[in-house]
């Protein structure tokens, strides 16, 4: 691009091919969205296997009102689960990350490594003991129980994200805080917390998205359909194969709306979360 102003025919061809490929992939990535949105705006009588790709004849909102009447309680449950769990786990992460990056002690790196390994291991390895334990303390089948579990499983990832953020904060700032007579909490409150807003945004967004989208833990801990999160409700809505497709699609869109809106508004932060969450970055 930087080399010359003379554009040869060959570069025009290759540039064209690049854009063509990108547009083809973009269409492929948008295809499921088209189907979701398109079908949601059709009444049941218009939904047929032969006319799946055709646009609706008018904007019919009945699918959304009917889907909403079915998943609204679960949507509320998801909010009641996700918001507190995301906030609490971000807060825990901000302190743990601070310790892992600025208060290293003998063995702290090993502990951190064990956290990371734990983060990668599949939930299936802990499901049965988790149910037994939650039952024995009376938290099984309750929203606080699910919040608790999400907070515990959020410990490694939130510590990792905050730790890499604080690693970019010069130790001199921390030392200056010490010289000023600040202790452990003082440095956290007066040195790190005031500049941690970007990290909080990334971690909150990450935790919000992953907890909102969770299915397996919600399904296991809150098997009661009334208390289940919205992902489980959408699956139940779609469970019986005879149900109306338009309502299934509308329900799925409702369930996806919060994370999609957040992503479109805060895409940049989301991207940072993606990279920070991959350990390597």
């Amino acid at each position, binding site marked *: 691009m930087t080399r010359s102003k003379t554009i040869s025919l060959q570069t025009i061809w290759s540039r064209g091919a690049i854009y063509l490929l*990108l547009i083809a992939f973009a269409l492929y990535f948008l295809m*499921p969205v088209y189907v979701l949105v398109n079908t949601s705006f059709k009444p049941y009588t218009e939904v047929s296997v032969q006319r799946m790709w055709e646009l609706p004849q008018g904007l019919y909102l009945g699918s959304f009102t009917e889907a909403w009447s079915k998943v609204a309680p679960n949507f509320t449950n998801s909010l009641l689960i996700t918001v507190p769990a995301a906030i609490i786990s971000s807060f825990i992460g901000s302190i743990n990350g601070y310790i892992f990056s600025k*208060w290293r002690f003998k063995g702290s790196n090993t502990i951190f490594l*064990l*956290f990371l390994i734990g983060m990668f291991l599949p939930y299936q390895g802990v499901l*049965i003991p988790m149910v037994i334990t939650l039952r024995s303390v009376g938290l099984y089948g309750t929203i606080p129980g699910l919040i608790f579990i999400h907070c515990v499983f959020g410990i*490694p990832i939130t510590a990792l994200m905050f730790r890499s953020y604080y*690693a970019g904060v010069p130790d001199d700032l921390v030392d200056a805080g010490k010289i000023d007579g600040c202790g452990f909490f003082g440095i956290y409150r007066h040195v790190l917390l005031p500049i941690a807003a970007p990290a909080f945004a990334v971690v909150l967004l990450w935790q919000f998205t992953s907890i909102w989208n969770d299915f397996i833990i919600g399904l296991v801990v809150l098997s009661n359909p009334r208390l289940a999160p919205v992902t489980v409700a959408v699956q139940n809505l779609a469970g019986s194969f005879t149900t109306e497709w338009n309502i299934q699609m509308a329900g799925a869109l409702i*369930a996806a709306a919060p994370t999609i809106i957040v992503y479109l508004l805060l895409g940049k932060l989301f991207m940072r979360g993606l990279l920070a969450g991959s350990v390597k970055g």
Partner: protein
Amino acid sequence: MAVGPTTLSTTAPRTSRRHINRDLLLAIVVLTPSIIAVAIFIYTFIAWTFWISTVNWNTSVIDYTFVGLRNWERMLSSFRFQMNLRNLALYALGFMSQCIIIGFLLASLLDQHIKGEAVFRTIFIFPFAVSAVVTGVAWRWLMRPETGINLLFESVGLGFLKSKWFADPTWGILFITIASSWQFAGYVMALYLAGLRGIPSEVKEAAQIDGCNTWALYRHIIIPMLAPVTYTSIVLTGMGAIRVFDIVTVISGSGQAFSTDMLAYHMFEQMFTANRFSLSAVIGAFMIILSVFLVVPYLLSVRKEQER
């Protein structure tokens, strides 16, 4: 936010003040609840799962009578479990190759000074913000044999491409990876894009001056330089394959004669439908073993890299 490799070398400053030691102790005390939580809810629970896999708890009545490896023998020799292994191999093959190839391709394309890069990037990554359940609902309809993509094929004269998709009794599981890769390829693209942006432009320019064409540049310089990103992608997608549950549950469940049955789904059914907790625990423990082989060498290598 610093997204570069986290450095492990910065050590806590050692001032000789006495209250520093008191503060360090305070730091450890504050960290302790998290350590205990991880120790119990991850590591102890995993050990507990292994223990349950060796007892006789295969009804709804708790029974901790030790039976050795009997559950393991029974599970590993069962047809369904062997189907799980076959399906895992196919799923991993389809999912990992699609995510890595598409992810790398898209990142390389986007790295060519593209107008509207942000729009393309947003489109490619947004599926990752969508839950696997919603992904499954959309794709389940797209892959209905009598409509969806088949209908699209037919209307453009590609009727011979029509498929039974996930309902195919042999290759159904491979088709499910189309849906899961749709969701995850953007993440891999983001990783590769960050990697590509990390390669200094001098490297590319020097290669071009040396007469490298684009193909040689990628083959001999860029792809080898991105090897760490590829390793990360292999581990992340491999883990995704081992633990996949949501999308398979929504699209097809076990499928015809377990043709799309995956470990996590099998485990869930043994646990909640059949109450065979010990057999279920065998599957959970097996999944942990598989994951450890994938994850531990990776994390150790990342750590070694950072200590250098």
